[in-house]
């Protein structure tokens, strides 16, 4: 089946006009459409439905997974940051407990302690001790800050009030980002003093550097006004404002789905860090996170597309194939119907011919005898016997009667073979050809068509149905007569090929165009419709030849002529289902 015929099978535009309006059993287009749509519905719906469900479920699963992973990462990182700050607060607290107030308030000792802290914990830049009046009594670090009065500073009041304090990040005099941790202590007299340390934010960055965040993730800290406390590789440097809304307060780690300024879908996990102005933020590009899922979905989609196309092709092919088979069978049915009708018609013609021949035969016999008697009487009388004109007239009557007799005999012979059950007999093909040419001889002579017969003398007889062979030859010769112009040539050739006889009817007529050659054996295909052709002759001929177990071939060249070659078996083979054939034909 060619590719196009899958989409548009040959029955699509086929209209069997000859079959008549009531002989169609099937609407092939409707059967085809029903088959295709029904099969497509039952095969494709589950496939597409499953694919859609998979899409939804897997998307929800990956969303949940992203949220959980982000929440876990936020919790872990928050714990690290909290631990970092608590560790430093504890270190300062340890210093106050391990040293006498006088030691803490002495510059040398404080410098020693700072060295130890730097060495043990890292991140400490300077260290200062401030008395209950807010005056920095001792200071160890890169600047000369002893004697500075912090009593009016907000952070100093806050640390006295709450016991500890962690500041926002600021650049300060050194222009490096850092922040302050301060804790409140009490001297033996009960008066409070404050130990204050500056912490380098590099330590924070070290903390985040070790994190492996999927989806081009960004980990940073902002304060509650949305200012970056650590550098972010997406949103800028330290102390830049973040172009994201400050997330609402929550005691727990939270994850939200949002979009950044470029409207990229973004997953943000955040956590407020207790007792500090810090909010830990982890931003992930959702598109990046979804990439593996999208790749899988693309594969599924491709598989789905290929499956749908394959199913579509198979269904179209299957439907076209099956409906074409039904169509072919139906065409055969219609053709058989035509043939039965034709056989009945021929049987009727045969009966009619027999009756006519018989009815004519009797008066003909009387004319024959009467004329014969007159001739006899004339011959007896001398006066008449010498009258050549009278005898000539009588001979003419007798000859005409003989001619009529020959015609009625031929008609009876024809009638005997029409429509009856097959009668197999031994046939000399040469005799049959001459007999048939006898019927057509008049037309040949009127039109000056030269008909020659080329039959070798030593041909064996064949076992076949004489009536059918006669019909085949009559039809083929009629065709040849129609094809040649007046004065044309027709040759009937017979050759023996192994177990077959090949009978060829060759004409030098108009020929058959190649496009028509494939269709000439179809019922009701005719190029002579305007001249009374029924289009049945060759299809019936084809059927008859098949009945005889033979084959027919046609060779033709436009303007050069046509050769029909009928191959007939010498011995008739028993045919399958011949009993049925007989009962149908009868």
């Amino acid at each position, binding site marked *: 089946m060619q590719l196009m015929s899958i989409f548009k099978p040959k029955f699509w535009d086929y209209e069997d006009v000859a079959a008549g309006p009531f002989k169609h059993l099937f609407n092939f287009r409707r059967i085809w459409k029903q088959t295709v749509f029904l099969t497509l519905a039952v095969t494709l719906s589950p496939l597409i439905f499953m694919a859609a469900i998979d899409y939804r479920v897997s998307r929800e699963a990956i969303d949940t997974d992203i949220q959980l992973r982000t929440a876990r990462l936020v919790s872990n990182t928050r714990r690290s940051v909290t631990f970092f700050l608590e560790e430093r607060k504890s270190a300062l607290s340890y210093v106050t407990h391990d040293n006498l107030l006088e030691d803490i308030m002495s510059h040398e000792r404080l410098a020693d302690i700072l060295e130890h802290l730097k060495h043990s914990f890292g991140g400490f830049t300077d260290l200062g001790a401030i008395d209950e009046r807010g005056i920095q009594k001792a200071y160890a670090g890169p600047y000369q800050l002893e004697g500075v009065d912090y009593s009016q500073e907000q952070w100093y009041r806050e640390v006295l009030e709450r016991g500890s304090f962690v500041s926002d990040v600021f650049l300060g005099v050194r222009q490096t980002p850092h922040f302050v941790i301060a804790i409140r202590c009490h001297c033996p007299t009960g008066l409070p003093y404050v130990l204050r340390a500056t912490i380098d934010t590099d330590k924070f960055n070290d903390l985040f550097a070790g994190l492996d965040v999927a989806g081009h993730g960004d980990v940073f800290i902002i304060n509650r006004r949305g200012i970056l406390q650590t550098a972010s590789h997406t949103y800028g440097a330290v102390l830049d404002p973040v172009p994201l809304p400050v997330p609402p307060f929550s005691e727990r780690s939270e994850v939200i789905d949002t979009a950044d300024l470029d409207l990229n879908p973004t997953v943000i996990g955040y956590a407020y860090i207790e007792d500090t102005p810090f909010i830990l933020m982890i931003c992930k590009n959702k598109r990046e996170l979804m990439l593996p899922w999208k790749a899988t979905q693309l594969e599924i989609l491709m598989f789905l597309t290929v499956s749908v196309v394959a199913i579509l092709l198979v269904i179209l092919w299957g439907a076209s194939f099956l409906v074409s088979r039904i169509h072919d069978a139906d065409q055969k049915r219609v053709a058989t119907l035509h043939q039965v009708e034709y056989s009945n018609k021929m049987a009727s013609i045969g009966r009619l011919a027999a009756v006519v021949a*018989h009815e004519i*035969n009797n008066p003909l016999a009387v004319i024959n*005898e009467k004329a014969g008697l007159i001739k006899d009487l004339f011959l007896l009388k001398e006066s008449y016997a010498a009258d050549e004109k009278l005898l000539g007239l009588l001979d003419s009557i007798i000859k005409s009667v003989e001619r009529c007799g020959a015609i009625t*005999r031929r008609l*009876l*012979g024809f009638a*005997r073979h029409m429509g009856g059950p097959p009668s197999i007999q031994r046939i000399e093909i040469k005799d049959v050809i001459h007999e048939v040419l006898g019927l057509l001889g008049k037309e040949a002579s009127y039109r000056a068509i030269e008909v020659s017969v080329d039959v070798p003398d030593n041909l064996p007889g064949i076992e076949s149905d004489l009536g059918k062979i006669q019909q085949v030859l009559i039809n083929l010769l009629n065709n040849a007569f129609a094809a040649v112009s007046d004065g044309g040539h027709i040759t009937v050739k017979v050759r023996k090929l192994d177990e077959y006889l090949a009978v060829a009817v060759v004409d030098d007529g108009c020929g058959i165009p190649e496009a028509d050659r494939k269709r000439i054996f179809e019922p009701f295909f005719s190029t002579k419709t305007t001249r009374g052709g029924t289009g049945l002759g060759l299809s019936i001929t084809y059927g008859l030849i098949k009945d005889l177990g033979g084959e027919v071939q046609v060779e033709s060249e436009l303007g050069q002529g046509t050769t029909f070659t009928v191959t007939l078996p010498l011995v008739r083979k028993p045919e399958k289902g011949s009993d049925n054939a007989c009962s149908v034909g009868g």
Partner: protein
Amino acid sequence: MRVLLVDDEIELVSTLAERLTLRGFQVDWFAAPLDALAAVRDNPYDVAVLDVKIPKMGGLELKKEMERLQPKLRFIFMTGHGSLEDFEAGVDEAGAGFYLVKPVNIEVLTEKIRQLSAEEGNHP
């Protein structure tokens, strides 16, 4: 030589009888098979020329009846219906020697009658 002609077509059989008479045969003709049988009962004939299809009694049946009456009688059949081959089969079955298809050629008929008589050796 006596010849019996039987055919339901009077015009045909009478004319044929006359023509045979002209050719020297002694001819009786009948259109009804029963009349013909009666004649056979009373008179000896050499050859009977019968139509195959005679009303009331078929030609072949008539032949059997006549054979019963005159076993030496020989027969020629004439037919105006059916093909030669079909008829031939039927005649063979009945054991008849000759058959002719209408319209018959008088010379052929004469020849056949003479031939049959010669076989019997009754007449030259």
